[in-house]
């Protein structure tokens, strides 16, 4: 089987990650994230008209109800006959008036309404952030106990890498962040760690070979051993997610998009980020530095 040099070329992989991360962080700063009403508060109405309608027609229909309270309705087409209307948070009675006007004037059917108070949005965002921080801490402890601290730290770095890239790409393409997106990010969190653990498991198993091989060589061999599995698993996971993304309906697309980016990044980072990072870090330990010197000397003498 062909051997690939994953550890020796770490500068290339880190540079590649660096570029993508720079773009992601740049997009976060420049574009920012577009939060759904679940986080900001507001009302979102989805209606479907019997025939194609323009934004102007909807605006005209809403003129009376909207102007009176200054709800600042934002009208956005979503397909030919489907229209999304965003306003500040509406009371049920007001929602009913909007829907009635749209039905009377355009014959439009209510598809969905969602309304969220601003305080509620803040609460669930807080809960999500709390869950994220706690799960990272718990994982740090768990992986440290089961494997070792350095592996835990590298796995978390890879995780941060994947989450940042996913969020950054969201900012880049300007997709709206919804609770489904949050669920997707959490899945990425799980998948990224899962994938890294599979690689680290093999590294741990191969530790007995650390007499003949340096830590980098051993890590490289481990990654090569799990490479076929990594490729196959990524394919097996990305195929269904891709099916939703390219062939599924509108409603699931946001979720699939986040997952597609995150899983690709997760598969990349286990091999190209977490493993070289671990090898570099471990080789700073005196034991493994000595091992590398011996190996270099042996290589030099055999060459000379």
């Amino acid at each position, binding site marked *: 089987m062909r051997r690939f040099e994953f550890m020796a070329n770490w500068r290339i992989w880190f540079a590649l990650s660096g570029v993508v991360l720079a773009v992601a962080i740049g997009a976060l700063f420049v574009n920012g994230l577009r939060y759904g009403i679940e986080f900001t508060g507001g009302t979102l109405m989805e209606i479907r008209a019997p025939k194609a309608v323009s934004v102007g027609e909807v605006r005209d229909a809403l003129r009376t109800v909207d102007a009176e309270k200054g709800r600042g309705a934002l009208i956005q087409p979503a397909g030919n006959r489907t229209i999304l209307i965003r306003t500040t948070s509406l009371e049920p009675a007001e929602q009913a008036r909007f829907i009635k006007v749209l039905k009377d004037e355009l014959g439009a059917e209510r598809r969905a309404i969602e*309304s969220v108070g601003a305080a509620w949005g803040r609460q669930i965002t807080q809960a999500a952030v709390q869950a994220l921080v706690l799960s990272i801490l718990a994982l740090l402890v768990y992986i440290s106990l089961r494997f070792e601290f350095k592996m835990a730290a590298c796995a978390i770095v890879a995780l941060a890498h994947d989450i940042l890239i996913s969020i950054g790409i969201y900012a880049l393409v300007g997709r709206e962040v919804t609770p489904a997106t949050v669920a997707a990010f959490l899945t990425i969190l799980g998948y990224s*760690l899962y994938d890294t653990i599979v690689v680290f498991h093999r590294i741990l198993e191969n530790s007995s070979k650390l007499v003949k091989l340096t830590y980098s060589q051993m890590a490289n061999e481990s990654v090569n051993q799990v490479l*076929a599995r990594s490729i196959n698993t990524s394919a097996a996971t990305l*195929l269904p*997610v891709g099916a939703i993304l390219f062939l599924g309906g509108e409603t699931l697309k946001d979720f699939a998009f986040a997952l597609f980016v995150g899983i690709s990044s997760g598969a990349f980072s286990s091999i190209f980020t977490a493993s070289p990072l671990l090898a570099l870090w471990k080789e700073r330990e005196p034991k493994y530095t000595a091992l590398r010197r011996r190996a270099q000397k042996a290589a030099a003498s055999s060459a000379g």
Partner: protein
Amino acid sequence: MSPTQWNWLTIGLVALLVAGAVYFIYPVSKSTKLGLDLQGGIHVVLQAVGTAKSPVTPEAMDRAENVIRGRVDRLGVAEPQIERQGEDHFLVQLPGIRNPEEALEIIGQTALLEFAIVEKNYEGLGDEELNEAKRQGEKVAGPTLLTGDALSDAFVSFDPTTGAPIVNFKLKRTGSKTFGDITTKNVNKRLAIILDQNIISAPTIRSPITGGEGIIEGIESLEEAKKVTLVLQTGALPFSLDIVQNQTVGPTLGRDSLVEGLRAVVLGLIFVAIYLLVVYRVFAVLAWISLGVFGVLLWGLMTVMGVTLTLPGIAGTILMIGIAADSSIIIYERIKDEIRAGKTMRTALETGFNHGFQTFLDADLVSFVTALILFYFGVGTVKGFAFVLMLGIACDLFTAFFFKRSALALMGRVAFFRKPWMIGLRARPQEAA
């Protein structure tokens, strides 16, 4: 028991469980509960807002929950769900409801009914003018003499002369006496009937009412009268409720989402099946069966535990397909490694499983820890999603240990399967040797 017997036993056990799961799942339309996002309905989160006089206490929350339950029952919803969230929130889910806007109004209404005597200076005003003055902050009526707590029943009837809707109410025994006293003392004065700070009507008391029955006139429409009746029947909430979040999904959108979600699941499965076949050839069939066993067990478990299927749940399931396929992939890659290292196919099938199992046991446990934390601290969708993930991981490990392991060991005994190309290896090192 010999290893072979043990293997047959576990496979038999898995087959029984699968049969049991199918029994619970069938018929699908009855067993599988669809979330609001898939069948349409409303989802509303209410926050209790107390005042110094009526603070939000656990007891008040209990009372409020009963009131909400009563109102929802009277709305005639098939499977309502009313849940307490935290100290002062309620989550109400009403699937398949026809008139969501009205339902929201009814559930959230405080429905505090008060009776008071109109002050002398205001006696000359009409009902509308009285209300207007009250809204301006003027003190149009005296202290509250009786509240809706005294009511025992309410129903709608019509004024025999005008045909306008009327709400009739009956009072409990003590309330009836108080009402009799009030009306006796205040003959020829006006009695303001106030619902949620709004004067509905203020008729003049012509003679004492001691029969314990009364009527409320001045109601705009029959619909309004029905609404008032319903909230009077179920009693007042101990505090006001703010709607902090509500979501209405129309039935057509729900159906579209369900169809799209299922199509994505089926397509995903087909793609994964084809990919596995290309890479693992004959052994792909075992991976397919394992995926099937995994899927049926997960579905059955969700049915038995009463988990509601939502859109994020479907998406989570699609991801679980990948993870379940991965447990086969890890094992097969390991088996290939062992064969390349010179082991016979038969040994490789067993040791490959054991080594591979340890790998994804660790990986699965890490995912499980994540899911567990998300379940404890997450809200709404995140919670449901995390729960499906935990069940999925459990089913994956179970299927691997009790089905895949035994099946691989048994296949190792059959000469037909002991050819490395059957699992996708090109070279056949040990056969050549």
